[in-house]
């Protein structure tokens, strides 16, 4: 396999609401791809081909065909679990109907737990941590916060938001039964202009903490409205660091907005150098580090399988353990969910200790706690159907 070129199809939204996120990730893929092409265990060259799915599942299926036509055997997607579910299903069918032309689906950020539970597929590998894992870490953190007594769950009214709410209730009840969930609300996705009524509701409920899976302007506007209304509670979030949100948050929410993720902006070490280089080169911030997992693990698996054939590589990926930027990570064989350490970080002024400032806001996400893989690991109900 040495010297072979491996084409990876990036199928995600490059225009519209999630366009900026997609653009950022494409750059990450290209940037890291260059690094890996210089040296990787398998000695292959990666080439990323981008496709814009406009955030539409049906469109993504077309692009899957387009990628297959071009002989691409590895596809990558992550922004939007609805697309992920559609793709996972489609890849499964494609591989059944086109033996010898199998495709592997590498998911870098679609976090719906179903993808590795009831709807798991042999051909799908997730490199992000799913909602349940993140909530596991978040609740472990909250467990040790005595001032958290009343929690409000405010989420986007779609699969991701529903799951955040569901797992929050479940894990909190398990770990801190004394915490009261004083309110729960779902708001329409990307349609709310003014969160003031929701904030009023939060205040009225007496909650001292808000748990939200919101991303994009839904998160920024929420925090902004809370500041304006004089709400002083904490926010536990999933996506504070994603494109656009830092700018929109600005100084607001300093010290009160927490994020749970498999990385943050002040990781230090090798990945920090990459992040700085990326920042200098693109004038943008690299936050989808799971892409680095993908390159690391894929090239390792190819080296192990001594082939770039997806069937063999998929088999080699199962159970593979590597050392990645956030420590030792393992692709769990039973459900193809990457087991990895998670971090809680907090939005605050950048300082000498935590200097990296996303979107030149003068703010940063400073780590407050790290959880090892086993802490956030959650059981799976996946009954993997392996080919053959």
């Amino acid at each position, binding site marked *: 396999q040495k010297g072979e070129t491996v084409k990876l199809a990036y199928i995600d939204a490059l225009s519209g609401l999630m366009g900026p996120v997609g653009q950022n990730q494409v750059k990450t893929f290209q940037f890291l791809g260059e690094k890996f092409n210089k040296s990787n265990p398998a000695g292959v060259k990666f080439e990323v081909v981008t496709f814009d799915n406009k955030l539409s599942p049906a469109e993504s299926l077309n692009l899957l065909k387009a990628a297959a036509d071009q002989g691409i055997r590895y596809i990558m997607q992550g922004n939007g679990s609805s697309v992920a579910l559609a793709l996972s299903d489609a890849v499964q069918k494609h591989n059944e109907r086109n033996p010898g032309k199998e495709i592997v689906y590498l998911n870098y950020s679609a976090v719906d737990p179903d993808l590795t539970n009831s709807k798991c597929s042999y051909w799908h590998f997730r490199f992000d941590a799913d909602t349940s894992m993140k909530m596991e870490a978040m609740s472990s953190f909250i467990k040790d916060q005595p001032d958290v007594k009343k929690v409000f769950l405010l989420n986007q009214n779609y699969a991701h938001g529903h799951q955040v709410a569901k797992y929050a209730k479940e894990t909190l009840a398990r770990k801190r039964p004394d915490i009261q969930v004083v309110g729960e609300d779902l708001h329409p996705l990307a349609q709310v202009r*003014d969160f003031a009524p929701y904030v009023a509701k939060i205040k009225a409920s007496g909650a001292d903490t808000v748990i939200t899976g919101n991303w994009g302007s839904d998160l920024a506007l929420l925090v902004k409205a809370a500041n304006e209304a*004089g709400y002083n509670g904490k926010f536990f979030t999933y996506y504070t660091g994603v494109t656009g949100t830092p700018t*929109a948050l600005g100084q607001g929410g300093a010290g009160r907005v927490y994020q749970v993720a498999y990385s943050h902006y002040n990781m230090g070490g090798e990945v920090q150098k990459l992040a700085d280089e990326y920042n200098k080169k693109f004038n943008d911030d690299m936050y989808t580090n799971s892409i680095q997992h993908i390159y690391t693990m894929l090239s390792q698996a190819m080296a192990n399988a001594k082939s770039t054939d997806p069937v063999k590589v998929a088999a080699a990926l199962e159970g593979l353990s590597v050392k990645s930027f956030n420590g030792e990570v393992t692709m769990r064989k039973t459900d193809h969910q990457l087991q990895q350490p998670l971090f809680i970080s907090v939005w605050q002024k950048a300082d000498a200790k935590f200097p990296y400032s996303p979107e030149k806001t003068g703010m940063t996400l400073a780590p407050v706690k790290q959880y090892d893989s086993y802490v956030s690991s959650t059981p799976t109900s996946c009954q993997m159907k392996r080919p053959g």
Partner: protein
Amino acid sequence: MDQLFINLLNGLSSGLLLFMLSSGLTLIFSMMGVLNFAHASFYMVGAYVAYSLVGIVGFWLALLFAPLAVGALGAAFERLALRRVHKFGHVPELLITFGLSYVILELVQLIWGRTAVPFTPPPSLQGSAFTIVSHPVEGMSLMLGKAGPEICAAAGVACSNFPLTKVFMMAVALLMLLALWLLLTRTRVGLVIQASLTHPEMVEALGHNVPRVLMLVFGSGCALAGLAGVVGGITFVTEPNMAAFIGAIIFVVVVVGGIGSLAGAFVGSIVVGLLQTLPLTINGSLATLLNSFGAGVTPSTPGYPLLRLTVAEVTPILPYLLMVLILIFRPKGLLGTRED
């Protein structure tokens, strides 16, 4: 209680912002018969232009110039594109504004980037206008400015701040209402415009320069949207999605209020604004309502998925529901005079 009060205020302010947008839309719609799909785009352009101008001329002049610039843009569009398709009928007019909304969105992103820009209110508009203090014994009271911690930290006291930007927004909207009302009732331009709607040739034969008037109307409508954009931009976030946020809802406002009626647009805006806000506080659903009458609704009851939805959850669709009902039972709208 204070929650209801503050939500009432929120609903009003959001309704007034809608009014700033819908007044321009209804102006264009009723006078030229054009459903301007790009109206929200002009709103967005207003915010972005003001954002750029603030650095040069300061906020208050930007508040003046940005709408003017947007108005000029709108007038130019009318002159160069819309006027050509006017004779083809309403559907092409609508589609061309549809196309324009795409183009504007892309151009805005090319010029100002694809993510939010930090457009903040000037210092004089930052902070709270007043604080609602609800005291366990003394009840609810209002305090100008931000109430200090010495008051709010007391046991059992809840403070809610109402931001200055929203008060500013409400004031601008009301001023605009007054100005528009004067313009339309005290000038003959309004008559010329309405007459041109059906018989442009005749109006011209009577000595009125119809194309220029139409251009002015379209430009003014857009300028109003631009003004709303500046105010909306500092109150919320200035980003490429801000047009989509407003999207179809302003059409709802115009239809509910009654096509062609400024007063209707005002009433419609307030109604829709409140409708988007107040029900959010209600957590009940049809199921809970029925159960309170002892109906015994359980997850196995037929139609449970529908009955289960809480009022808060369905809030976003209430304006559309209202619009459909209004169209069916009172097609003129609340205050409208025309049916078509």
